[in-house]
């Protein structure tokens, strides 16, 4: 099917959500999982791995291929906090608000991130560089408070460290080097 067919009239067609995507990339995912029972969640995980989020067009494609109603897929997506229906930043910053991090000052780190990025939890910066999110324990409690940026864990983070950490990722995005970290 073509990308145009995938445009729907519900609220998911808000600005930026229905960008053209290369649906062909999903074929390998379908080939791998189609025959397996309980394939929907792994397929959604890999879809998000490819596009960084779950585009509306992908939901339609998954629905057709796995023969599951789009409503059920939407229900599954919105149930699990890992899935996102909106494009996310290049770097997903997740501040751990688990118990150990919380008692060691994670709230202050979150406040600093909010103010320096100018976004709230769940939002993405205008330059599509950072998405701010919170997590419930990454199992690195011995190093609390921690924040996870993509798959890197930063430990013993103080609110005064935030500027330096953000700068290192901005540098990384520009010249591929994580200076100052």
């Amino acid at each position: 099917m073509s990308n145009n067919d995938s445009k729907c009239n519900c609220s998911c067609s808000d600005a930026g959500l229905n960008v053209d995507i290369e649906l062909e990339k999903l074929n390998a995912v379908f080939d791998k999982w189609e025959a397996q029972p309980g394939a929907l969640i792994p397929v959604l995980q890999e879809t998000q791995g490819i596009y960084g989020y779950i585009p509306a067009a992908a939901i339609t494609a998954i629905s057709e291929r796995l023969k599951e109603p789009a409503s059920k897929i939407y229900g599954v997506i919105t149930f699990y906090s890992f899935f996102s229906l909106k494009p996310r930043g290049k770097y997903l910053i997740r501040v751990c608000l688990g118990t150990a991090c919380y008692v060691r000052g994670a709230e202050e780190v979150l406040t600093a991130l909010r103010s320096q990025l100018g976004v709230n939890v769940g939002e993405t910066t205008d330059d599509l560089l950072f998405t701010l999110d919170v997590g419930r324990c990454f199992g690195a409690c011995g190093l609390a408070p921690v924040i996870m940026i993509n798959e890197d864990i930063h430990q013993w983070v103080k609110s005064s460290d935030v500027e330096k950490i953000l700068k290192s990722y901005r540098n990384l995005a520009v010249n591929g080097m994580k200076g100052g970290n």
Partner: protein
Amino acid sequence: MDDIILNKRINSPEDLNIAKETILSCKENKKEKIFVCTGGGCIASGSLKVRDALVNELKNRNMSDTIAVIETGCLGPCAVGPVVVMGRDDTFYQNVKADDAASIVHDHIIGNKIVDRLIHETADAKYQKVGEVPFFKNQKKLVLNNCGKINPNKISDYIAAGGYSALCKVITSMTGDQTITEVGASGLRGRGGAGFPTGTKWSFARKSEGDVKYILCNADEGDPGAFMDRSILEGDPHSVVEGLAIGAFAIGCKKGFVYVRAEYPLAVERLQNAISQARTCGLLGKNILGTQFEFDLEIRMGSGAFVCGEETALMASIEGKRGEPRPRPPFPAQKGLWDKPTVLNNVETYSNIPQIINKGAPWFASVGTTKSKGTKIFALAGAIELSGLVEVPVGTPLKKIIYDIGGGIPDGKKYKAAQIGGPSGGCIPTAHLDVALDYETLNELGAIMGSGGLIVMDESSCMVDVARFFLEFVQDESCGKCVPCREGTHQMLEILNRICEGKGEMSDLDTLQKMAVTVKNASLCGLGQTASNPVLSTIRHFREEYEEHIQDKKCRAAVCKSLIVFEITDKCIGCGLCRKSCPVGAIIGSSKTKHIINTEMCTRCGLCYSTCKFDAIIKH
């Protein structure tokens, strides 16, 4: 070493023995070893750079032929990572940096001299060897025995340490019933929290009729403050694979799933590697060890829903649905995954199985208390000198874990409470510091053993805020299917928020307790049934703090924002950092003069407090 065994299937018990002997006698195994912890904690602290630096240093000195650097799973003391253990004499080095590699090789390996600056030190003494360091000396490592000694990425290391011999024993010399009897006799209880006898659970599933049965491993370790399962999967994944295979043989099933949270990428990677290696060696798949026994394993990843740690929700999630729990009965042992008889245990439970089979039920039952056998792993974190992973016999006093193993509370502060069992658990106050950590004793105190998260709090934690924190957590994670959990936790949270804002009334305490009991009795699954525990336990043990919040509008720990004031003291030198950091412009003052906070404008975000380099800002 892996290439020795990975190119040939292990088709019989003799093959397994030959593989073990071949590995033990090979040249690589005879090398002197330097163990570098590559658990998640130490990697975050930079242990991979330490490993590379050691490997390079040995190469540059042409010593790679005689000395090997071994990457191991979590050794435990995450707080002082990266940690290194010298195989030669068991010397324990902590806070090791890549730059230290030269000293370790030059001084320790060549010069046989201890690198003094990397030795573990307390206020009174220095400790050189692993066995002497109080953190290790006071533990009893059974499940974690391999962590720190073998490379979790190599099946050869696991086989050399006796791995898969328990699986071999059950499938070649025991029946499923005998296996279940042995596990039952050991007294092993589920380590996921509830403590249900494992042997009994298995026997239910064995007796259930049906050709297709499933065995599941719950690695959706969602309790904040818990990282036991993560460390087992990262440090000794084959022990979990072997435990699952033994369970599968016992109940008569061919297929298993491990449900791991997506927050644990390294655990997933190492487990996947372990499963692939076991398949290649013929220890998973068809005709295992040349017998008729067939079993295979698949990993399914979670997607960030705490409720999926509940068994029926977890199964719904594997089936590709929203992870919502369903009423029991029918219990999973009768109708579980895809309505087939299913056994579900926690990672730590499976990891106990191989040694129970190898060393026998009486050996296992000799550790622990009358009613709770074996050891329990705790994730020690929070206000503690040495946070990390510890394993002790069930029934060990809390005090011993906090002071003898964890080194006590840092910064000269005092112990206030330990939160055990996460959002389903409770707090243990100073008066009960001697409590023995076993299932029954903890229940009497209004706490639970839980999966093993143990968060220590000092006087800077507010117990009302802690209760609010956990309730916010369960409220957020409540799946919304049943009303008592969805609405009850919401209402309770509103009351707690009010109390923390200084708007509470004394009658709120009774209302909270009544609602807590209703939510507990009426909720569908474990999440709702235990959601009230942190509230009930803090009201029970710290009632005076609630009363202070309500009557005196005071938070003694200076945590609840509405009840605190920030003030700049005479220590202020007028550097202006706080003024620049204040997001609402509530701080005024000119250069080199003492600054002042406008308390009307102040939003109590605390940025100035953490920015000040002179400790000039206080909160009270």
